[in-house]
C-alpha cells in the first residue's frame, strides 16, 4: 500500500469518528509527506491545521493509521508551502505583472474558448445505459431522437431526480449523433454555463456573437434547465435561440429535475414551448434494474462480487444510481486493500456506515426538533405541547416524519419524545407527509431544506 492509499483509508476511518464540519475543516488538502522509520509526517495546508491535528486529533490519527499498519510509532505535521510541493516548472509562470488594459478585455481569440468543443463525455452511450421499467420511455424517446434528428420529438424534455441517469441519456444522444455524422454541430451545456457565457458576452458587448454562435448548432442539449428560473435576461435570450433553432427544425434536448409545470418563475411562453414537444421522466429504478446496474458495472470494472452482496446493496440503496455505484466502488476498493473476496458479510461490514443510519452519525432527535422549530419559527415546547394549534400541526408532523425517516425511531418511541403521543398519531403523520411530498413540490423543497440544515449543524 502506498502513502496515498494509506492516508485515504485512514481518513475513511477518521471521518466516522468526528463530525462532518470538523472533518472538512481540518483534513481538507492533507496528505502523507513521508513515512520513514515508523514515523509519519502529514502535510497540512496551514498552521491552524498543524496545531489542531498535532494537539487534538493526534490520537485519532495515530489510532486509525495503526489499524492499517501496526508498526507506526508517531505522527507529526508540516505545513506544505509552494517550494515543496509544486514542481519547479510550475512555480515559474513568467507571466507579466502588468499588461495593457485593452489586451485583456478585447482578446477575440480567447473569447469563446470552449465553444468549438461539444463538451460531451464519451463514456455516456446508449449501449451502457441499463434499461428498466422506470426509464424505458425516456430511453426510447432519446433513442428515437438520435435516429431522426429534429423530426421526431422536438423539443425533448427529460426530467427526474438526481443521480437517475438524465445526463447519461441526453449525452448519449449527442455521442450517438457524432458517431454517425461527425460533421454535425452538437453542443452540450449546463444551464449554469449558458448563463455565465451569456453574462460574459453582455459584459463584453458581444451578445450578438453569442447568439449567432448558438444559431449554428444542429443539436443543442441543455442540462439542468431549471436553473434558469428567475433569470429573466437568460430566459429571454434562450427563448430567441430556442425559437430560431426550432424554426429550422434543429433538435433541442432539455433536462430538469422537475417537470416544466413545477419550475418556478419560468416565463409562460417558455413553459408552453417546453411542453410542446415530448416530455419523459426517469424515476427511481426498481429492484431488478438496480441489480442489473450493479452487475453491469461489476462486469465492466472486473469486480468479483457474490450475488448476495449485490442483492444486499441493491435492496439498501434505492434512491440514487450514483450512490449505488459509489457503494459498489467502496466495497471493491476496500476489498482490494484488504485482499478479501466480496461476500454478503463483507459488503455489510464495509457499507455499515452508509447503509442504515450511517450517514446520520451524530444526529439526535434533538437536532431534528431544533431545526424544525427554527425553520417554522415555533418553539420546541410548542412542538411537544399537547395542543392542536394549526401553526404547529404541520411542523410537528414533519418532525415525526424526519425522526422516522432519518433516525429509524419506532412509532411509539417518536410519540414518546413528542409529549407522549399515541403511536397511531405518529403513523398517521408519517403517512400523511410521505404522501403529501409526492404531490406538493413546495413541501418537498422545505423538507430538503430542513434536512440540509440538520446535517449542516454538526
Amino acid at each position, binding site marked *: 500500500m502506498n502513502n496515498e492509499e494509506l492516508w485515504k483509508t485512514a481518513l475513511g476511518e477518521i471521518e466516522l469518528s468526528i463530525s462532518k*464540519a470538523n472533518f472538512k475543516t481540518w483534513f481538507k488538502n492533507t496528505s502523507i509527506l513521508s513515512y520513514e522509520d515508523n514515523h509519519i509526517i502529514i502535510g497540512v495546508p496551514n*498552521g491552524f491545521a498543524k*496545531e*489542531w491535528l498535532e*494537539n487534538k486529533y493526534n490520537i485519532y490519527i495515530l489510532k486509525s493509521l495503526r489499524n492499517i499498519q501496526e508498526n507506526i510509532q508517531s505522527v507529526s505535521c508540516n*505545513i506544505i508551502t509552494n517550494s515543496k510541493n509544486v514542481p519547479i516548472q510550475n512555480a515559474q509562470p*513568467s507571466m507579466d505583472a*502588468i499588461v495593457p*488594459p485593452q489586451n485583456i478585455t478585447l482578446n477575440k481569440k480567447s473569447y469563446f474558448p470552449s465553444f468549438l468543443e461539444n463538451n460531451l463525455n464519451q463514456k455516456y452511450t446508449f449501449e451502457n445505459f441499463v434499461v428498466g421499467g422506470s426509464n424505458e420511455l425516456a430511453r426510447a424517446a432519446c433513442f428515437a431522437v438520435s435516429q431522426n434528428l429534429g423530426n421526431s420529438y422536438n423539443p425533448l424534455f427529460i426530467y427526474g431526480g438526481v443521480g437517475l441517469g438524465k445526463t447519461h441519456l441526453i449525452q448519449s444522444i449527442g455521442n450517438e449523433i457524432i458517431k454517425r455524422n461527425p460533421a454535425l454541430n452538437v453542443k452540450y451545456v449546463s444551464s449554469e454555463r449558458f448563463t455565465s457565457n451569456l453574462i460574459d458576452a453582455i459584459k463584453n458587448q458581444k451578445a450578438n456573437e453569442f447568439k449567432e454562435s448558438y444559431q449554428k448548432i444542429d443539436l443543442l442539449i441543455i442540462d439542468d434547465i431549471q436553473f434558469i428560473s428567475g433569470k429573466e435576461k437568460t430566459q429571454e435570450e434562450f427563448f430567441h435561440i430556442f425559437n430560431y433553432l426550432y424554426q429550422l427544425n434543429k433538435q433541442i434536448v432539455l433536462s430538469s429535475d422537475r417537470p416544466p409545470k413545477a419550475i418556478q418563475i419560468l416565463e409562460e411562453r417558455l413553459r408552453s414551448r417546453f411542453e410542446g414537444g415530448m416530455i419523459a421522466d426517469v424515476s427511481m429504478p426498481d429492484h431488478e434494474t438496480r441489480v442489473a446496474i450493479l452487475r453491469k458495472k461489476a462486469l465492466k470494472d472486473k469486480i468479483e462480487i457474490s450475488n448476495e452482496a449485490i442483492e444486499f446493496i441493491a435492496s439498501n440503496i434505492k434512491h440514487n444510481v450514483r450512490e449505488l455505484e459509489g457503494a459498489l466502488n467502496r466495497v471493491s476498493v476496500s476489498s482490494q486493500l484488504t485482499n478479501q473476496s466480496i461476500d454478503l458479510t463483507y459488503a455489510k461490514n464495509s457499507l455499515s456506515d452508509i447503509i442504515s443510519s450511517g450517514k446520520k452519525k451524530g444526529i439526535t432527535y434533538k437536532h431534528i426538533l431544533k431545526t424544525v422549530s427554527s425553520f417554522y419559527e415555533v418553539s420546541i415546547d410548542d412542538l411537544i405541547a399537547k395542543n392542536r394549534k394549526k401553526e404547529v400541526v404541520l411542523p410537528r408532523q414533519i418532525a415525526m416524519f424526519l425522526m422516522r425517516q432519518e433516525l429509524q425511531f419506532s412509532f411509539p418511541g417518536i410519540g414518546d419524545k413528542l409529549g407522549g403521543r399515541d403511536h397511531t398519531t405518529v403513523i398517521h403523520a408519517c403517512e400523511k407527509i410521505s404522501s403529501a411530498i409526492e404531490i406538493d413540490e413546495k413541501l418537498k423543497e422545505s423538507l430538503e431544506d430542513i434536512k440540509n440544515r440538520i446535517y449542516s449543524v454538526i
Partner: protein
Amino acid sequence: MKLTCIQDNLKKSIQACEKVVTKRNTLPILNNLLLEADKNSLKIEATNLEIGIIAKIGAKVEKTGRIAVPAKLISSFFSNLPSGEKISLETDKEENLKIKSGSNKTIIKSNIADDFPLIPLKVKEFILKIPAIFFRMIFSKVSPAIAINEARQELTGFNLILKEEELFWAATDSFRLSEYKLERKNIEVDEAEYMRVAQNGSEIIIPFNVLAEINRIISTDLNMEDNNKINISIEEGQIFFEFNRIKIVSRLINGKYPEYKHIIPNKYETKLICDKITLQNGIKLAGLFASGNSNEIRLKIDSQKKNVFLLASGSETGENSTELKYDVHGPSQEVVFNAKYLLDGVLAVSTKEVMILINNDTSPIAIKEVSGKTKEELNDFIYIVMPIKK
C-alpha cells in the same frame, strides 16, 4: 473563570479581535471569541483559520478558566455598554458568562471552549521591527494597486522581497503596480536571520486582509504611537505580527508572484511635474466625462506650444479639459489612461508635487514623489500604470 479588569481595555481588545470573525464559517465555534484567564491576565482570541488574533490585557484573576462567547453579541454589547471603570466576568457551570459593570448585569449564553482552534505561536525570533508610522505609510501607498477577489490568488496579497539593503513591498492587479522600497537601515532587523533569509533570495506573499486588519487596529488604537514597533517573524507558510500586547498570525499565500522588476522602465523620455491637488482634481473632473468601459482620459503634452492638458470626452456625457502648469522636460506626448488607475496613483503620493514619467503612448507610465526642496524625484515609491492602446 472569575476576574476583574478595566472595562475600556477589554472593550478595545474585543473590538480588535471581533473583525477577524467572518460570517460564513463551516465550524460554528469560529463565530465565537475565546476568553481565557491566566494567573494575572485575560486573553481574547479570534480566528477564521486564515488569520488568528490574540489580545492580552491585565486582569485581577480569582479563578482561571476559558469560555467561547458569541463574537457579534459580545462586541455589540460592549459598544453599547455605558462606559465604566471596572468590569467583572464570571462563568458558571452551564457555560454562561456573567458580566457586571456599574449598575448593569448581564448573562451571555456561551459555549465550551474545548473546540476552539489553537492559534499557532511563533517559534523563531523576530526578523523585522517596523515602526507603526512606516507600516501605515507602506500600506497606504501600496494597497491601491491590490487585486481584490482576483482569480489569480497570488495577486490578492502584498509581495515582500527581502534584499540585503532594501525591502520591496509591491502589489498589482495586473493593470497597475505599486511598489515601496524600505531601506533596511531605517528599521531594526535581526542581522543574522535577516542576512540568511535575504541571501536565499526570499520573497513572500502576505494576504491583504491581515495587513488591512493591522492597519485598522493601529490606526484606531490611541495607545499606538508612531514609533511603536510592529514585530514581524516569518516562518514556513505563515507570518507573525506582534505589537502592543496583540499577536496576529496569518497564512502566507502559496504561489509565485509574477516577475515585475523588468516592467519598470530604466529611463524616461518626458518628465512632467505638477501640483498634486490640481492634478487630482483635474483627473476627478475628467473622469466624470470619461468614455467607454475603460474610463478613458487623455494627458496631452505639447512641447511646441508649451502646454499640458488633461482631456476627456464622451458621446453621451460631454467634454472636459483642465490645463496644467507647464513644467516639462522632454518631447511632446499624448497618452490615454483609465482615470481611476491614474487617480489611485496620484492619491498615493504624499508630497506636494507629483512627477509623471512617460516614454511613449504604449509603454508603462510611472508616477513618483518629488522632494519639496530639491525638486528632484524620490525613488522610494513608484506607481506604474499601463496606458490604454489607441
